[in-house]
């Protein structure tokens, strides 16, 4: 549907110009408190221990809220936020070729992304204004070499939301303020631009009105005032109400010389577009910024469309499709045909409660054969509740706790899509039972298995992809692209082909703005100590063919497929050991490599699609990386 939009865009721009006053085009969203995660009950900047489901009670507004009674309060999960840019950039292939991409780049967690970590942050890290940033940061600041040394990366530590800026403080005179019962009616000389629930500061009335208040209703029509409130005929936007529980029927203050209402300066989503453009333009990454959240988290992902500098002819929108999310909402599913897609120069915030644990992935869903081939693909995984069980506590008991909440339970008898019922030790057992495994003091689990069978010490996201250099060249040069003749010639693990896959640290590429950009932040080396287990979160976003990844030396144990634990309805684990896995674009799979008894040394993950062990014309490289057992 891309090209028709180009025709519509001028029309949209005209409309935009007409109402631009009300638009806040770039905006980042990362609330510090929500209905599900009230900051009064929960520290939203850390993951609390999981002991039991969140206790819910009916709140005053007609929906369930976490029980505000502190003794019952048991809020699970936290708030996570991330910002990404949608635009273009360049990456470097294994044969040294610079390849043009349509791509996403990080606009939060810059330091973490450069270190190969997720760019997903708690509000306390995300809602922090940054230092002065330069195009290509942090690559520019750190003057990288390849491989990038840890010392070089140590100098840049900023992980907040790029562009975040304080809202401008605003103050207006109060014409009249009066309280009827506990409701205060305020009529101001000029509008403050308030919405329901916004904070507002009242001062100078000399009465108990003064202080920090929260708007009950904004935009109140004067003719709806109750008896006792004089309607001075201001427009609705000048009037608002709030509730004052500490005082009743306070006196009317009219045309005071000192009474003012103000919005305090604070983070309300406003941004300074300059750093966003400085950092976001030409800053594409392959794979796109890594995302990782925990079950029960609320996740706010802001996509900021900075435009594609090399393709000024395209008024291209971008979206984020959270591939594999169960019971997805159509609105936040990222399919432009089924929802909305953000235009250039604006931001859209996707909102999800974290779904069931598993290895998902994400990509742009605009003209998928084009935008996926061109590089708009990224990794995403959800960590299980089981990780948050206190060390030494029973995993089986923790899974039984999850069964007590309809949202987190998995009941084979009533839900055909339930994947992790309580585990059964042997197929001949009469019923599921506890194998006595407790939460290990180190390491983590891939799923809520209840038996510790998906334990791992280290985890590595691995994304399989392929680039067709002809398509990328054509994509840069304003020519129509052929889809049916697409033929990948670079075969990528985390956006790199061998030998780049085993280069530690980020790879950078100098782009047309003359700056170095971290183009491929994620190495594909698997490092583990002898005896450890490594979880490989493998996803595939190749758009033209199936790819196989084989292990030379260490067996692959497959424990999950398509973000679901491999377990039957009776509770038997259906894990299997294999030497190779084959995935199509749009699939994911969880593999555990167990190095117990494996001699120290270097092992290989490579493709037995032997023609994929190449980097375009070079008959060497391709879909291969190393496993280091140390």
């Amino acid at each position, binding site marked *: 549907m891309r090209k028709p939009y180009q025709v*519509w865009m001028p029309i949209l721009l005209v409309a935009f110009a007409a109402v631009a006053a009300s638009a806040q085009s770039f905006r980042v969203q990362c609330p510090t408190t929500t209905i599900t995660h009230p900051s009064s009950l929960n520290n939203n900047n850390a993951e609390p221990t999981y002991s039991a489901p969140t206790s819910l009670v009916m709140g005053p507004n007609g929906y369930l809220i976490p029980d505000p009674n502190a003794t019952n309060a048991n809020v699970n999960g936290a708030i996570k936020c991330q910002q990404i840019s949608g635009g273009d950039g360049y990456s470097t292939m294994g044969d040294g070729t610079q390849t043009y991409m349509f791509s996403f780049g990080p606009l939060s967690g810059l330091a973490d992304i450069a270190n190969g970590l997720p760019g997903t942050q708690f509000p306390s890290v995300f809602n922090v204004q940054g230092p002065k940033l330069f195009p290509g940061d942090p690559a520019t600041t750190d003057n990288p070499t390849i491989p990038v040394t840890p010392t070089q990366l140590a100098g840049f530590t900023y992980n907040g939301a790029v562009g975040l800026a304080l809202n401008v403080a605003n103050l207006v005179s109060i014409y009249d303020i009066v309280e009827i019962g506990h409701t205060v009616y305020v009529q101001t000389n000029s509008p403050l631009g308030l919405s329901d629930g916004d904070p507002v500061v009242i001062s100078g009335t000399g009465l108990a009105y003064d202080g920090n208040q929260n708007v009950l209703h904004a935009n109140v029509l004067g003719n709806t005032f109750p008896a006792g409130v004089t309607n001075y005929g201001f427009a609705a*936007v000048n009037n608002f109400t709030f509730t004052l529980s500490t005082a009743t029927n306070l006196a009317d203050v009219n045309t005071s010389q000192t009474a003012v209402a103000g919005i305090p300066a604070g983070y309300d989503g406003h941004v300074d577009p300059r750093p966003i453009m400085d950092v976001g333009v030409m800053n594409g990454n392959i794979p796109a910024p890594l995302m990782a959240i925990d079950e029960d988290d609320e996740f706010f992902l802001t996509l900021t469309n900075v435009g594609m500098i090399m393709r000024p002819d395209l008024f291209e929108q971008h979206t984020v499709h959270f591939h594999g999310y169960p019971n997805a909402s159509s609105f936040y599913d990222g399919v432009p045909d089924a929802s909305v897609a953000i235009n250039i120069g604006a931001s859209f915030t996707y*909102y999800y409660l974290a779904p069931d644990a598993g290895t998902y992935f994400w990509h742009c869903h605009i003209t998928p*054969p084009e935008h996926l081939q061109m590089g708009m693909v990224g990794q995403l995984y959800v960590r299980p509740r089981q990780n948050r069980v206190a060390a030494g506590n029973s995993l089986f008991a923790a899974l039984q706790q999850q069964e007590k909440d309809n949202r987190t339970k998995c009941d084979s008898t009533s839900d055909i899509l339930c994947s992790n019922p309580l585990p059964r030790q042997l197929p001949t057992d009469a019923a599921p039972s506890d194998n006595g495994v407790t939460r290990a003091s180190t390491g983590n689990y891939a799923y809520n298995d209840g038996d510790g069978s998906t334990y791992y010490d280290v985890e590595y996201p691995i994304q399989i992809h392929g680039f067709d250099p002809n398509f990328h060249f054509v994509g840069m040069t304003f020519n*129509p692209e052929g889809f049916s003749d697409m033929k990948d010639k670079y075969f990528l693990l985390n956006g790199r082909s061998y030998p780049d896959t085993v280069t530690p640290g980020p790879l950078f590429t100098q782009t047309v703005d003359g700056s170095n950009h971290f183009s491929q932040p994620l190495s594909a080396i698997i490092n583990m100590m002898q005896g450890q287990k490594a979880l490989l979160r493998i996803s595939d976003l190749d758009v033209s063919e199936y790819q196989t990844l084989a292990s030379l030396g260490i067996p692959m144990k497959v424990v999950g497929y398509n973000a*679901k634990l491999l377990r039957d309805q009776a509770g038997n684990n259906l894990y299997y050991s294999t030497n190779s896995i084959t995935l199509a674009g749009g699939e994911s799979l969880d593999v555990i490599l167990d190095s117990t008894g494996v001699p120290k040394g270097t092992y290989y993950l490579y493709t037995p699609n032997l023609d994929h062990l190449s980097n375009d014309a070079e008959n060497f490289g391709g879909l291969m990386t190393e496993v280091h057992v140390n």
Partner: protein
Amino acid sequence: MRAMNMKKVIVRTQLLLAAMVAMAMLLAVSAYAAAPGIKGTTFSLVAAPAYLTQPDGQAVYSWGYGCATTFTPTYAPSNLSRTGFCNTMQVPGPTLIVTEGTQVTVTLTNNLPNAAGNTSILFPGVTLNAFASGNGTPGLLTQEAAPGQTVTYTFTAPSPGTRAYYSGTQSDLQVEMGMYGALIVLPDPTKVPGACTSPAIRTNLYGVTDWATVNKVPGAPEQDYRLAASAYDHPDTCYDREYLFQFAEMDPRIHTQAEAQVLAIQAKGGCTAGAPGCSLEVPTEPYHPSYFLINGRSMPDDMDPNYATQYPHQPYNGDPHMHPGELTLIRVIGQGRWQHPFHEHGNHVRILGRDGNLILSSTTSQITYANGGSGTGLAGPLLFTTTTTPGLAFDGIFYWTAKGLNWDAYGHNPSSKDSNATPACTPDANGYNTGAAAQSAINYFEWCQDHNKPVQKAPFGDVAGGGPTTLPDPNLFTNGAWYGGSPYLGPDATTRATGCNTGAQANGSAQGAACGQTGSTPPSGTIANSPSTEAGFAFMWHSHNEREITTNNIFPGGMLMMMLVDSREYVIDETN
């Protein structure tokens, strides 16, 4: 210079395609899918040539199976009003619907051009009865029908499930030309689990007065379009709706060559089949398909009705709809020579079985299901991308609910004066609103834990506010052609969320004043999924080998369809 001119041509082509999408959607008021076919024990088929139409305007010479003119088929499901035709050739071939354990007879007459030689049908997974002497001509894999001749296959219908049938003669060419179809085996009625036909299961169809009936919605109330109550002889294979998708590719160069050679051989005259110079010599490698088909059609044609008159040789569509919570059986067959990773947006699919083989747990002790039935646990995988390999069929169950969204998908607003904005939500044992009182409610199968919970901080319109997010100004985004017009499910919610329903909001804010100032999400670009009548949640179901969602290099097209989850206000009418 040439490149730029070329670009213009392509842009025009794509605009034309977009216009065609729009036209198709305007013409097709409602067009759903079911799994239509012909049902019985005796089928008389022919193999014949015809042209398949593609959305780029091409008519592709093809071969396919159809009904003999002397044969009067029984169409199923019986309440499809357009049981119009079983032409002498269609792609895919007629879906043969039979019942487990019955004797089935399929007679095939070869009406292909003489140059095509013999043809046949393979029924993988089926044990054929022995051929009587003189029944057909011996071939490599099975008995064949020589040009103008007939062959008869007889077998006992095997275990329930979906299977493929296709040509077993010169398959590299004949299957590519379109000679494939589906065999659906329904469970023996005496073996359909009682739990699947009792009123206790979660369905819109049994023993309930549905929303549409209570609210006197024009047209029929919800109807049953299933071929059976269960997919297998197992209580966890009950379902509420079903759809059949057959995937295949076409390389038009093969078809063009076949047609040219057929014409040349006909023009030469005096040819007897199989004689030197009288047979087709069409290279089928290298293979460069540029059409990617679901049920013989490319998007957007696949979303037009079954038996649509504009596709006389492609009668089956791909246009799934469902209400929240409905168990939807999808029957899928890989009929081409490539694998296709088919991604179902919206939820996972439980694979029940492959090629009619139910996949069961090794634990033989029975599970007692919530619907009252009991059986060995299922063990098929849960997949969000269901790969079809050539010749392989699977049956899977999909459903969608708003569980876990953490906001009320219906945009309910307790302070609204619209009664449809303030229904009750009484959770059942699994947290859904499915009790007797809910059966005629707009929010049947709502996920109650999020009932009334807002998503927007300060919404325009009559939906609850105070949620965690702020949507961008509508001028900053572009609406999709299947966008329902608001983040919310159903026409009532969408009207409340976007309309200037003055006075509807009872919370004292100045509803009237807000109207017309900021506007709302304008659903002006919507050409399907009308915000005022349907406003479903649309999900793209498509091949994730993304280059296959194109039609001859034009995006969008190919193996792509939009699945819609519809609120109960909208009657899903599959009769056309």
